[in-house]
């Protein structure tokens, strides 16, 4: 059974259906991809899953429990964490405090955590120690994305939703980031990844869901997705760039 599940989730903005009866699952211990063209409803689906957006219909299940009517904070406490497509860092805090505050929140909700120690561990794990003392407004976007991930990891989540985490990263940063995600998944974390860097998605994910115009048009392994004519037509394009790139990487 998937750890996180949406069942027939529909979201409407006025007359516009942004997400239309989407059912997907995110398994523990692996990376699940969510791809599709701009405006396909990926971020809206994330917002619905995390409680920032109320669905017109459908349900969100976390570990089998219905959380559809739960507030974002409540879902976070059940182990749901996310990053944002447009950075949502706390601009008046340093990099270290951005991570640390997640521990402060955890402690305020009654959990016993050694905030300092945990912060150090997460900063080391995500490779942010060298910039920990800087203001977040002073660091480049690629690293800021990692700060968002580190902050989410501070809550010791079971499910991690990443909204375009690699955009703005340099090639080298993406490499390190991919290794981090693989490691986290291996430890049992369920990761759901929205990303336009298709080679990265193809390489990391065991399952991929494809959205187009708010509808789920395909789900499957990277190989199945690459070969699905519908997906190629809607998103990847006829030249099968995704395949090319992956093949090149496999050769290398």
């Amino acid at each position, binding site marked *: 059974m998937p750890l996180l599940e949406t069942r027939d989730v529909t979201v409407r903005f006025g007359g516009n259906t942004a997400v239309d009866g989407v059912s997907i699952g995110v398994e523990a211990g692996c990376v699940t991809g969510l791809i599709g063209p701009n405006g396909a409803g990926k971020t809206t689906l994330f917002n619905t899953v995390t409680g920032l957006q109320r669905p017109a219909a459908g349900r969100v299940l976390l570990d089998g429990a219905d959380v559809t009517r739960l507030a974002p904070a409540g879902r976070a406490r059940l182990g749901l964490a996310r990053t944002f497509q447009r*950075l949502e860092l706390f601009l008046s*805090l340093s990099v270290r405090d951005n991570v640390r*505050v997640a521990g402060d929140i955890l402690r305020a909700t009654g959990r016993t955590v050694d905030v300092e120690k945990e912060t150090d561990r997460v900063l080391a794990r995500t490779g942010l120690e060298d910039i920990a003392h800087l203001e977040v407004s002073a660091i480049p976007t690629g690293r800021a994305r990692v700060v968002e991930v580190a902050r*989410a990891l501070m809550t010791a989540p079971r499910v991690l939703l990443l909204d375009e985490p690699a955009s703005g990263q340099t090639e080298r940063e993406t490499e390190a980031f991919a290794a981090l995600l693989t490691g986290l998944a291996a430890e049992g974390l369920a990761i759901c990844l929205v990303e336009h860097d298709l080679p990265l998605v193809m390489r990391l994910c065991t399952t991929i869901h494809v959205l187009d115009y708010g509808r789920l048009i395909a789900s499957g392994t990277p190989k199945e997705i690459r070969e699905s004519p519908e997906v190629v037509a809607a998103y990847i394009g006829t030249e099968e760039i995704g395949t090319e790139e992956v093949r090149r990487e496999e050769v290398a």
Partner: protein
Amino acid sequence: MTSFLTFTILGLVLGAVYAIAASGLVLTYTTSGIFNFAHGAQAMLGTFLYWQLTYGWGWPMWLSLVVVVGLAGPAMGALLHMLIMRGLRETADVTKIVVTVAIMLGMVYLSQWIWHPEEARVTEMFFGANAKIELGGVVVRVHELVCLVVAVAVAIGLRLLFTRTRAGVVMRGAVDDPDLLRLNGHDPDRIAMLSWAMGSTLAVLAGILVTPIGGGALEANQLTLLVIDAFAAAMFGRLRSIPRTFTGAMVLGMTATYVMAYFPTDWTWAGNLRVSLPMIILFVVLIVLPQDRLRVAAVRTRERYRPPTPRSAAVWGAALVAAVFLLALLLDDGSITTFALGMTFAIVALSLTLLTGYAGELNLAPLSFGAVATITGFHFGVTGSGLASRLTLWGVLLAVLVTAVVGGLVALPALRLRGLYLALATMAFGVFLSNMVLRDTTEHTLFGVTFSIFPNGTLIVPPLQVGPFDLRDPRTLLMTATVLFALIGVGLAALRASGYGRRLAAMKDSPAAAAMLGQNLVKLKFGVFMLSAAIAGLGGLLMASAGGSVSGDNFAIMSSLALVMLTVVGGIGYISGALFGGLVSGVGFTIMVGTFNDLATAHPSMESIYKTIGQLLVVATALIGMGVGKNPSGTVHDIVEGYRTLRGARALLAGAAAVEAVLYGLALTGVIGNWWFAILTACLVMALPVAGRMRAAAPVRRTPPELAGVAEPYSDELRERLDRELGLPARERMAKEASVHAVA
């Protein structure tokens, strides 16, 4: 039945005027995203101008109408947009609100300067109060018909504007994405200017129409607040929908009229309830209407604050206490009491540092919470009678506790609200308190207890006595207030540096992200609001007891707004910003006007000049408020940044300290007067950062990245900077690669 019809028509007329005013508000909000608190003041200024032309100079009425509504109104709006509003993009809600509040206060001060408030001025109804028409047994004044017709015309005009004209369609999109508009070949600035001109015209029109209905007497504060009542109508349409705004205005107008007509007159609360009704409705509408969901978009604003460490705050707190102690040696008892009064205002201002500076929430009526504490202290915290009566420590604690609870109760329904909406809710509470509670001088009997909340309109609050400390002595009072300010300030700095403070900062910067980390925003907001109300209560009660007696006017919304504005001017994120805001708004005005009036009396030949300077200074404080748009982090921030450049300039600092010590010595021994001491000290304080900047400016020369290696050698420092800006993490690896490239 006839009387019912008459009241209904009266309600519609009042609603029509509200609708005109409120639609102007909606217009500017939709196109610029700025909620214009000065809307009422614009109406007031226009009406005064209309009075001046028609009654002061005897122009024909139609001519002055054309000049005021056709020229002055649009010009005022266009000017506001060009000079001020345009610069407010990408500033926090607080800054936007404070700037328009400053404009409002500036306009009120200006009008009181030009048109002396003690002189009576009346505008009459169009076609006279006796021009009446009978419609089906109901007598309607022609003026009232004019109001209805104008409202209908405005409604149709706006409808056509938004649906039929290009400019109107563009207006609807202007606030969401000005860049997109620019790409499409529109000029968002021109569109915004047009809407400000129209909004301002509608305000002026509403002001001219409503004044005769309300009796015809022109009074700046009252007229300004009258149009503020229209806020409730605008809120019906959630500041977006003109049709709903009109509906809201009608509901508002009719409710007010029916309450006046059908409430039992012997009920002791009825009179005050009528006046407070629009604010009660505003509060209810704010709470009932569905709210925006948490926006996913961190507030990217230009405001920056550097919170002090608890240790440096403690050092500065001690320095403040020492400085005030030394300063008090120079002053006479009267000045010390005034100074102490200012210090109590500064304590109230600290509540804003916590709430707005740290937590990003707004309270536009901090003094109203001071009023709550004062009333509690007056009724339950005084022992003894006559000259021997004293406020007890338990009384103060009880008052603070009650204020915290009231703060919580006010905030509880409003907690889902954010930014502007919460600000409006607190303002509604403040105005409600002023109208309903602070004017409650009549006696009520409830459950067999006869009482009145604000007997005689003045409360005599005796000084506090704790053991040997008797605050009747001005010096003890001043030092107690200063020590309290310093203690609370240090406490706040410690709070900001703690996990709680970081959680507040997280909520302020990105509520959505904070919620996604598991933070219950409502709980956090509730707690910080109560704490802030408690601080405001403590300051307010001390203020009342420092002054000896207070009237309801001491807690008026205009004073609250001035305090909020000046605290933001000082720097809402800084403890010293609260000190600045409190001192200037609490006693600064009094001292400025008083000093120049004294000078005027002393030199009769220069009287008008001195009085003008005094008035000018008061208006100037509002001008500083408007300047917040240019410098949203506040004055203190600038000064602190200036002094930062002095780090390491030991000689300069030591020299300055020596000069200051000599000045103080001279002042203490009476060689130079206090004024000279103050002026020279101010010069010294201002001159130091300038010297520091000059010193710091000399060696710094940054090479633009593209000239690195061309204009100057490729230094390690430069390489590090480039790495950081390009986001390359590891320095060692980079160095290795660089050498590889060099070999290749």
